[in-house]
């Protein structure tokens, strides 16, 4: 006769599996970013990602994480663009920073948001945001940076290292 698997074991295994799975899911926390085919900002883009998109971690290298999207696309994102896993059971040992960043997604759109800025601007009509918005329009493509680095012999295009 087969002995039933003890409930304790089942529960702990289940928790282990769930926590491992959850720990591998990352959420994009910046407005938009790109999935690159190699761990470099100016590497070709596999696809774009937006705030709140969930990706599955495959591996890590330097500051980069190789991920898989829900659609199955595989590529690299920089670690600063994604949220630390939500249910990291070790987080409590890592201090506030990790715990706090875990609430990033839950707090999306809350607190100091567009509505609060509008309310502030209604009260302070003398403060102009025209140049702030123009600043945001200045966008430097990754290819421009690559060209700038090449011509300036910087990074991997440098003579020495």
């Amino acid at each position, binding site marked *: 006769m087969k002995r039933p698997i003890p409930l304790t074991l089942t529960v702990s295994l289940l928790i282990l599996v769930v926590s491992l799975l959850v720990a591998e899911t990352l959420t994009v926390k910046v407005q938009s970013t790109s999935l690159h085919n190699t761990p470099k900002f100016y590497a070709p883009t596999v696809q774009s990602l937006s705030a709140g998109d969930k990706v599955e971690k495959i591996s890590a290298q330097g500051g980069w994480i190789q991920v898989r999207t829900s659609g199955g696309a595989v590529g690299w994102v920089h670690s600063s663009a994604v949220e630390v896993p939500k249910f990291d059971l070790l987080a409590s040992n890592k201090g506030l920073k990790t715990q706090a*960043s875990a609430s990033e997604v839950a707090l999306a759109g809350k*607190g*100091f*948001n567009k509505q609060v800025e509008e309310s502030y601007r209604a009260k302070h009509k003398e403060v102009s945001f025209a140049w702030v918005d123009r600043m945001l329009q200045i966008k430097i493509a990754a290819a421009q940076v690559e060209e700038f680095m090449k011509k*300036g*012999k910087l990074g991997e295009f*440098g003579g*020495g290292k």
Partner: protein
Amino acid sequence: MNGLRHMAVFSAAFLASLILTSCSAVQQGTDILAGTGQISASDQQSIIKTSQAVSATFSQITEEQEYYIGRSVAALILAQYPAYDNAALNTYINTLGQTIVYSSDRPEIYAGYHFLVLATDEVNALSAPGGFIFISKGLVRRCKNEEMLASVLAHEVGHVCSKHGLQAIKKSRLVDAFRVIGTEAARRYGPEELAQLTTAFEGVLGDVFETLVVRGYDRKYEYEADDLAVKFDAAVGYAPKGLTDFLQTMIGDSTAASGKGWFKTHPSAEQRLEKVKNRIAALSSVPSEASVRTKRFEQSVAGLN
């Protein structure tokens, strides 16, 4: 039968211990009190929210909120100093800045990094949270090559990476703001909550602006930003000598006596120079200057009036 019950109790305890590892002591405490009927569930919730608000720190400010704080701080800086409307120069500064950002500790922030030259002869550089970085015309003019300009921008990127601007925010503002955030499930606030948040927001902007423009950062943050500038310079391939060369120009500067801009908000150049030299000496390999970069720098700033 008894054995099964033990097992159930044990597994419940195991589950509870796992859950508790990720909860605060307050949560545990209120759970116990709520369990014994000593406090109601709503009391328990409000105690937890209050404790979250009291433990408020700058690190709990989300990327998106940092962006909104930064936008308004940037607007306040631009109310003080007009923008230098020179598309070619601003493109050059942004391309150079972005090159440093790619090699920084925090290349991705909510809406990216953006750089702008300010139309003032005062020597100054400012970085608002959320990656809004300003550099005065007076400072650009003082730079002799791309390495010097890169080092100044790297110092500012360092402030943003380490969230130094956000650390200027008084805890009480965050306590007030987080109290509202904690009680509201909605992302659209009612008039009362909005008024409270707007007041907290005004306070936050005042704290950050005062620190950036009037009082200056704590010295330790300036030294940290210098450290990061050397690190980022070396990572990109810029000669970190750019920073020592720049600091050298600040020593014995006659405008220093006026105590305006950079001179008012930064530790003395001599003190910084000393520390930066030590930091450079500790690098495993030190990049050197390249004439091709100096040439393009000269071309880019040629039209500066």
